[in-house]
């Protein structure tokens, strides 16, 4: 039987008056091509609940209407209404009221990453020579509508609370897309390695959740975060040089030798703190003390590094 109604459980919470969040359930006649946003509008106009939510354009351009629908972070204006829905605010952000969240921490982080082109020479005037090939790395990132749906779903954001309640040590994928948009632009001449370090990029867990939830299909990890990690390899603090340590470990050992990588990454003193863990691993036969690759395999892997132009040194 075709469903005729939408049953929506909607998150309600006003931190200034409510002791705890609650849910209101509403019944809405299901219309063809109905969107989640239509259900929210109906709730306000016909159900007598003063629901708080944010939207503007209604056509996936302004990025304002992010919500969680049945646990999936998405845009209310673009998500199809289904007969049974739980509608909640986006995660990783404080609730202002009901479905309206405070995006301030992510927006401030974006601004602090200076997402604007910086030239060293004077503007040569219009038109500037610019080819599609030159723009190719930056181009797909320009579709970002800054909805921060990606950052709301990011486990690394959740795991890196900052020093104060308003921010995160890892700025999140949304802000990194804005940074990469300019950092990968052929006309940008600023050394952005310090800014990428400031973004806490080493905390990205490469889980691809951001790519999965992005409403406009931006290759967040492969197109923005990976190239930024390359830039951060040579950052002033050296806090994001782990990928190079890893690669050099592969060059030396063919298979990754985790004990030596651990020592290199943590340093001797911090590694000492892990001696009890290392000892238990040894007892449980979880430690491979020596690399086992043959000399011919080592030669073959070294040849690949050379053919790929990977010198291992700072650029």
């Amino acid at each position: 039987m075709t469903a005729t109604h939408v049953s929506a459980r909607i998150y309600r919470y006003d931190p200034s008056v409510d002791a705890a969040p609650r849910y209101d359930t509403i019944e809405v006649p299901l219309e063809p091509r109905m969107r989640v946003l239509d259900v929210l509008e109906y709730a306000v106009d016909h159900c007598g609940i003063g629901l708080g939510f944010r939207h503007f354009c209604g056509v996936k351009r302004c990025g304002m209407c992010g919500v969680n629908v049945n646990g999936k972070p998405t845009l209310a204006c673009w998500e199809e209404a289904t007969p049974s829905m739980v509608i909640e605010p986006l995660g990783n952000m404080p609730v202002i009221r009901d479905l309206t969240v405070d995006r301030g921490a992510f927006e401030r982080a974006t601004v602090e990453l200076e997402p604007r082109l910086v030239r060293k020479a004077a503007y040569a005037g219009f038109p500037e020579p610019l080819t599609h090939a030159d723009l190719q790395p930056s181009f797909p990132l320009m579709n970002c509508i800054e909805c921060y749906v990606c950052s709301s779903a990011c486990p690394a954001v959740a795991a890196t609370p900052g020093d104060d309640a308003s921010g995160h040590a890892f700025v999140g994928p949304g802000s990194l897309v804005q940074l990469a948009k300019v950092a990968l632009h052929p006309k940008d001449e600023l050394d952005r390695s310090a800014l990428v370090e400031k973004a806490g990029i080493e905390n990205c867990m490469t889980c691809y959740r951001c790519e999965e939830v992005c409403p406009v299909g931006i290759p967040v990890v492969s197109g923005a975060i990976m190239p930024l990690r390359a830039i951060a390899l040579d950052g002033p603090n050296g806090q994001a040089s782990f990928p190079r340590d890893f690669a050099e470990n592969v060059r030396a050992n063919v298979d990754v030798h985790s004990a030596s990588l651990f020592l290199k990454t943590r340093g001797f003193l911090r590694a000492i703190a892990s001696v009890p863990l290392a000892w238990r691993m040894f007892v449980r036969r979880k430690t491979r003390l020596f690399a086992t690759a043959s000399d011919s395999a080592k030669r073959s892997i070294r040849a690949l590094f050379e053919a790929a132009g990977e010198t291992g040194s700072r650029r």
Partner: protein
Amino acid sequence: MRFAYYPGCTSKGSTREAHLATQWLASKTGVELEELVDAGCCGSCEVKAVNPALHFMLNARILSMAAARDLEILTICDTCQANLRETGRKLTAETPARTALVEKLKSAGVAYGDTPRVRHFASILAEEFGAAALSRHVIRPLTGLRVAPFACCHAFRGPGATPGSRTILDELVALSGATSVPVRIDSDCCGFHILMVNEAASARTSARFLTRCADMNVDCVVTTSPLCHTALDIYQGKAESVSGRRIAIPVLHLEQLLAIAFGASVSEAGLDRHMVSTDGLMRKL
């Protein structure tokens, strides 16, 4: 049924039990494994950040070793699988990028020809045998055991994703007789890839999943990824520290869970090599 076996670095090191259980399970199901010795690392999520061409070349070298034997690749790591699949896709289409990579490989002494198929052992079991045929091996049904499947992110999202890989894990847990408990949510991650650089954040991430497992009275977690296993088992003590909760939930490789159901002993399945003791789990069976 013969495969080029690529266990990956972790299963030859800190999760060697995955390698042992795989060998036992393969022999039980009649899968022949020809290990790709000296195949080297797939680059994990790190080499691609340093030098994307090198990332593809490391993986292409592994693919070419299997192609030279005319065998498909069997992996037991979702991250290896994702990297090999991503590379295979890149090197299948006739593009200038492919030509450039093949030329570079040639200059390094690697002849790249055909791209072999790459599958995780779990996919091979589900696709080549099917649940009905595999069920016939079950001599110790894990009835009543509450298992939380933890699918690795790299299996089902990102450039090397394998469609349908999440349901495969659930299907294989079900055929062991165990009860699947849906604990993992989509924004969960094991945190493995930042273990080296930010152990506390990694532990907070794994603790989100593990404490929920404890809340839902899960007997064990099962995963298809030795990397997830590392974060959830070896570093479970750190998750306990940051969450202030006693967790003590064993984490099994899928190959171990099936091996136990198929009659393997504790040492054959490598259950004595875990950091979180599996003794209590085995007493329940």
